[in-house]
C-alpha cells in the first residue's frame, strides 16, 4: 500500500494533481446546484413580496 502511495517517488505529484482535480470538481458540482437553488429561492422571495404588496395595508384603507 505505501509502495502504491509512493508511486516510485512521484507520489506528491500524482496525488496533488488528483487532489486538486477532485476538489475543483466537487466545488463545481456544489456551485451548479447552488446556482439553481438560489434562482428558485429568489423567485419565491419576489413572489412573497408581491403578495404582501397586493394586500391592502391598514394605512391604505384608513
Amino acid at each position: 500500500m505505501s509502495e502504491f502511495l509512493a508511486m516510485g517517488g512521484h507520489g506528491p505529484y500524482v496525488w496533488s494533481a488528483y487532489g486538486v482535480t477532485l476538489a475543483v470538481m466537487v466545488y463545481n458540482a456544489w456551485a451548479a446546484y447552488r446556482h439553481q437553488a438560489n434562482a428558485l429561492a429568489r423567485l419565491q422571495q419576489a413572489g412573497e413580496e408581491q403578495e404582501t404588496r397586493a394586500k391592502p395595508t391598514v394605512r391604505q384603507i384608513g
Partner: protein
Amino acid sequence: MNAVPMRSRLWRAFHQLGSPPYVYRLAGRLAPWLGVASCVLLAVGAFWGLVLAPPDYLQGNSFRIIYIHVPSAYLSMGGYVLMAVAAGIGYIWRMKLAHGVAVCVAPLGAWFTALALVTGGIWGKPTWGTYWEWGDARLMFELLLLFLYIGYMVLRMSFDEREKADRVSALLAVVGVVNVPIIHYSVEWWTTLHQGPTLIREGGPSITMDMLIPLLIMLAGFSLFFGWLLCKRLQGEILRRERRTRWVQNLAVEAAA
C-alpha cells in the same frame, strides 16, 4: 403512408430547443442520469489509471496525471467551441436560450482550463524539471484560453442590460475561437517543452491499449460530468432570464408548496 415530412420534424425539434420551459424540464430530467453515469465512469477510470495501468517506461508513475490532464484540456477547448457556437447562434438568430447556454459554459470551461494548466504544471515538474515555461507555445495559448473565458465573463458584468451583454460578449466568444485550433497544433508548429499529441494524430493514438482504455473512460466521464453541471446551471440561468413569465412564477409557487 402519410409520413410527417422530415423538415417539419426538424423544425419542431429546433423550436422545442428554443423553448425555455421545454429545455428547463429536459435539463432537469437529464441531470441525475448524467451525474450518476459520470461519477461511475470517473471512479472506474481513476482506479484503472492509478492502479491497473502499468507505469510509463520513460516517465514512470507521473504519467498517470494524463488521466486528468488530457480530459481537462479537452474540455477546456471543447467547452470553448460549444460556448462560441451557442453565442454565435444566439447572435445570428437572436435566440436568448443560446446565449444562456454560452453563459453557463463559461465558468465551467474556465475551471477546466485552470485544471489543465495546474495538472500540467504538476506533471511538468518531474518530467521537464519545471512547473512553468513562459516560452512554450502550448502553455501560452492555453493560458490565453483562460483569459478569453474570464474576459467573456467580465465583459458581461460591465453591462446592466442583459441583451446588450449577450450581443457584445458573443462577439468576443466567436472571435476567440481561432485560439482553439492554435492550441491543438501548437505542439506541432513549435516544438519546445510540451510533448506531442497522444490521441488525435496521424497514424492513430501513440499509447498502448492498457493505458488508452482508462483514458477513454476518463474522457467520457469528464464529458458527462460537464454535461451534468451544464444542465443544472442552465436551469438556474433559465429561471433568471424568464423570471417574469407565468410558467416560471407558477414553478416557484409549486416548489415552495
